[in-house]
């Protein structure tokens, strides 16, 4: 058992290893093989930080069509290039990398569901948490809650926000261990650690898969949530 911090060597440990269901794949293509046309995918990252470039590029290679992509931004150029995206759920569809999206949107070939960033990430978490929704006052009195049920509770009004269910989460981490435990690097954590808990199949591109195991107190995402790993290097 690898402990990276000294104070923790007295943590009582058993002799056996965890039998993880996390599988390590040699290539993105193999890890993505069962993502089919019409799938809904969550995609981590904030701008380029923590964006799973290799996985998205692998998906583009397979020319998967009719995707719904849930992410903070709309910069999935590799997917727009061949018209792979039917719908984007995001908080910020502008910026230099969103040109591809704005073009297909303009041609009526894709749909946008815009959501305040905090509501977006909480709806993602809610899906992972097995809850039916949450109540917020963010956006009340604005078009940002258009389409959401409104309810009164104890004299206050709230918008009911439903979970965003996806088939797969594609995320980027920094280090993984043999049990699928993850650590993110700096501000690349963002949506990744939330999406890691939010889809039934979680696929992770990771800079490095270490031999052995990470310190159980320093893990950002438990291997319990991680289904597939691909090591992509720095």
């Amino acid at each position, binding site marked *: 058992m690898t402990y990276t911090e000294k104070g923790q060597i007295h*943590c009582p440990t058993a002799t056996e290893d*965890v039998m993880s269901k996390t599988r390590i794949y040699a290539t993105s293509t193999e890890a993505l093989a069962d993502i089919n046309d019409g799938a809904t995918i969550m995609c981590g990252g904030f701008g380029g930080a923590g964006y799973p470039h290799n996985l998205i590029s692998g998906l583009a290679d397979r020319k998967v069509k009719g995707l719904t992509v849930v992410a903070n931004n709309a910069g999935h150029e590799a997917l727009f290039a061949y018209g792979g995206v039917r719908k984007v759920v995001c908080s910020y569809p502008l910026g230099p990398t969103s040109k591809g999206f704005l073009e297909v949107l303009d041609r009526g070939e894709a749909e946008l569901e815009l959501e305040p960033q905090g509501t977006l990430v909480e709806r993602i*978490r809610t899906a992972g948490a*097995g809850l039916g929704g949450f109540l917020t006052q963010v956006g009340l009195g604005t078009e940002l809650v258009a389409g959401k049920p409104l309810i009164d509770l104890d004299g206050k009004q709230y918008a009911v926000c439903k979970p965003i269910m996806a088939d797969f989460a594609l995320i980027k981490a920094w280090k993984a261990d043999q049990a699928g435990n993850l650590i993110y690097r700096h501000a690349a954590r963002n949506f990744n650690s939330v999406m890691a808990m939010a889809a039934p199949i979680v696929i992770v591109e990771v800079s490095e898969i270490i031999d052995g195991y990470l310190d159980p107190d320093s893990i950002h995402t438990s291997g*319990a949530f991680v289904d597939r790993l691909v090591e992509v290097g720095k």
Partner: protein
Amino acid sequence: MKDGTDFNLWSMKEVGAKVAHDVQDSWMINVGVGLPQVAVEPLTNRGVTLHSENGIVGLGPSPAPGLEDPEVIDAGKGFATIVAGGSFIDSATSFVLIRGGRLDLALMGAYEVSIAGDLANWRLSGKKIAGIGGAADLAHGARRVWIITSLFANDGASKLVAHCRHPLTASGVVKRVYTEYGIFEPSGDAFTVIELARGVIASDLIEVGVPLSKI
């Protein structure tokens, strides 16, 4: 059913072996507080990942004497260990895992299980105070709920019932019940017999009030 002489009822250890046989190696399992140690022993040292709702993924067996750490305990508050590859998580994340469908199996005890799969295992109907802990979340959230229990309560009544008299923990969740008499599955209008211990006859059980399907 007056005495046990005609039967070769399973010991708790044998019941545990039956459960362990039906469990897949890749599963993540939560083992309920208070289940007999001898029944759940076969689940350790065979590779499944054990989850403890107070925040351990990869729960290991009890520590060797002298290595107890008050900050490594299980949901029953007994001293525990973490296996290599395990992780500590906070309570909110632990219940995200439970409700979110990451738990392949919750193994629990029961006061009663109904033919509809209703589970009563947190409060006896006469009792004023009881603790619920994580039982309701586990019963609702786990992909499968299996029960390990004696078939009869102390007063002789069948724990497999048409309708639960005790307050429910969750409705319609139990998939399977492992007892010393055999293995049963709620099927809506009765319990289906999956396996019986040697010498146990279903019609005898029906006679004493166990609502089994007539074959």
